[in-house]
């Protein structure tokens, strides 16, 4: 594959917020002392009177976002995934989810690719936590282009949304202007032997793996499943029907994320063999993101290995 441009999805989050801020007066952004890291600082710079820092107090920030939403504002609350979904879980559940308020949570630094900060900051449980809240939309973009489209779709959606963005630069695989719809998966490559359903930075890895698999005579379908909840059930079932084998890939624990969502659906509606690629119920550790992704099997090579074994 040709050399591709790499940008972190969190950059797309910040950029899209600025665009939204220009178009809509009711967009406000909340931070918990991480505006620089979450990339919301670009919004802060453009709209200082619409940016509110809450200091290192995520629980208060999430509930304050809920309160703001009741006054007609559309708050985007930002923090690291570990704190937005983890520390403030109960605040999201009770003050945002239960009243179904129009709060958007933009969580950056999700997954193992946080890198050097180590396990305390490598949140691989956020999809599981957020998926378990009724009415919550849970998404994670494959690249910066999709991240921007996702943030705009989140604004248009009436209700709570959780978006997970990454720290590390990842290849841009979407053309500018590629349509995005909440709850709709995207077939990036058609195939018949195995369907690889991925999200986040694993989408690019899945595309690379599929090319390698093609060279080895395995025709893999690749689906970008940016929305984990609500899951595009129709597309998963169609892929299962067509390929008969599913591999899920996510930068998340194999417990509670995309893999489990796909398995839950298939086990009830169309039992199909599945292999889940994700973080195997272990904590991460410090190291360069690329090395960690390789070590934890979140790579094109590992996806290809699993697929070859699976298709024997």
């Amino acid at each position: 594959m040709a050399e591709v441009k790499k940008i972190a999805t969190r950059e797309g989050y910040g950029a899209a917020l600025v665009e939204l801020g220009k178009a809509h007066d009711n967009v406000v952004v909340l931070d918990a002392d991480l505006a620089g890291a979450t990339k919301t600082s670009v919004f802060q710079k453009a709209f200082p009177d619409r940016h509110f820092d809450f200091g290192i107090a995520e629980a208060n920030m999430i509930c304050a976002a809920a309160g703001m939403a009741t006054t007609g504002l559309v708050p985007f609350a930002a923090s690291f995934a570990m704190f937005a979904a983890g520390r403030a879980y109960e605040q999201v559940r009770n003050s945002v989810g239960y009243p179904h308020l129009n709060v958007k949570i933009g969580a950056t630094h999700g997954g193992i690719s946080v890198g050097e900060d180590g396990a305390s900051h490598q949140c691989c449980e956020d999809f599981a936590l957020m998926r378990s809240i009724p009415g919550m939309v849970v998404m994670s973009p494959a690249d910066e282009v999709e991240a921007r489209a996702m943030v705009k779709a989140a604004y248009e959606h009436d209700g709570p949304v959780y978006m997970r963005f990454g720290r590390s630069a990842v290849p841009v695989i979407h053309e500018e202007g590629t349509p995005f719809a909440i709850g709709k998966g995207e077939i990036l490559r058609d195939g018949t032997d195995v369907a690889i359903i991925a999200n986040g930075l694993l989408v690019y890895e899945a595309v690379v793996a599929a090319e390698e698999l093609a060279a080895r005579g395995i025709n893999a379908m690749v689906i970008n499943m940016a929305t984990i909840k609500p899951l595009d059930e129709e597309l998963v079932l169609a892929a299962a029907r067509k390929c008969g084998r599913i591999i899920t890939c996510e930068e998340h624990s194999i417990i509670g994320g995309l893999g489990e969502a796909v398995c839950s659906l298939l086990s009830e509606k169309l039992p199909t063999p599945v292999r889940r690629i994700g973080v195997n119920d272990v904590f991460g550790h410090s190291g360069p993101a690329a090395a960690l992704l390789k070590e934890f099997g979140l790579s094109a090579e590992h996806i290809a290995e699993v697929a070859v074994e699976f298709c024997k």
Partner: protein
Amino acid sequence: MDKKQLQITACKVRMGILTGTHSAKAGHPGGSLSAADLFTYLYFQELNVDPANPKWEDRDRFVLSKGHTAPGLYAALAHRGFFPVEDLTTLRHIDSYLQGHPNMNSVPGVDMSTGSLGQGISCAVGMAMGLKHQGKSARVYTLLGDGEIQEGQVWEACMAASHYKLDNLVVIVDNNGLQIDGDVAKVMSPYPIADKLEAFGFHTIAIDGHDFDQMEQAFAEARTVKGKPTAIVMKTVKGKGVSFMENNAGWHGKAPNDAEYAQAMDEIQAVLAGLEG
């Protein structure tokens, strides 16, 4: 509404609390009764609300951060005309909109869903920020328990209220001195409450939470405060108005049985008769 009318209404609110929890065979009468006078004052004197249009965007907001005392809030809302008083008997029933803890989407007049302690004040902070940001003059009131302020999030919220100079926010603490496990001072002392709030940047006012004159002065004073939020720490009696419930932590989360209900209603009825006499 004059003071006597407020006292009469407070009796009706107390009877609503007893009727609701008795019918539910569950609920929290103690802390509802300690705040009954406050609920009455807010909904019949202080808050700019419209029962015919509960979602009116310029209304004042009230967030019951100590959400377990929903029976008191519901009784005040019902008597204020947000929904039928008869419905109070459906409290906590399986087919009722009167949930055990306040639900903003099912109960007319409830401005925020609460129940998990420590969160309501943060939501109130967000409301006050949102209203201020949009140039609205509406005010936000929130009621916390003295046990509730043991939650760390309360102090995060207080920091933010002061930082953002929320002079449209009034934080009220119901200092009835008791929580589930007993005396708040013995379980985990929150004292000195007013000093702490003052240190966090609040204009603080201490009152007797069963004295409508003091309430009137405090809320009037709060309206004059600029550039900082106001905290009203009100000393109250848990279970106020029912002799056997007063100052008894056992009535935090227990409903009266038939005999207890009859006696409690008789006691309030006697006070009401005296006032109306």
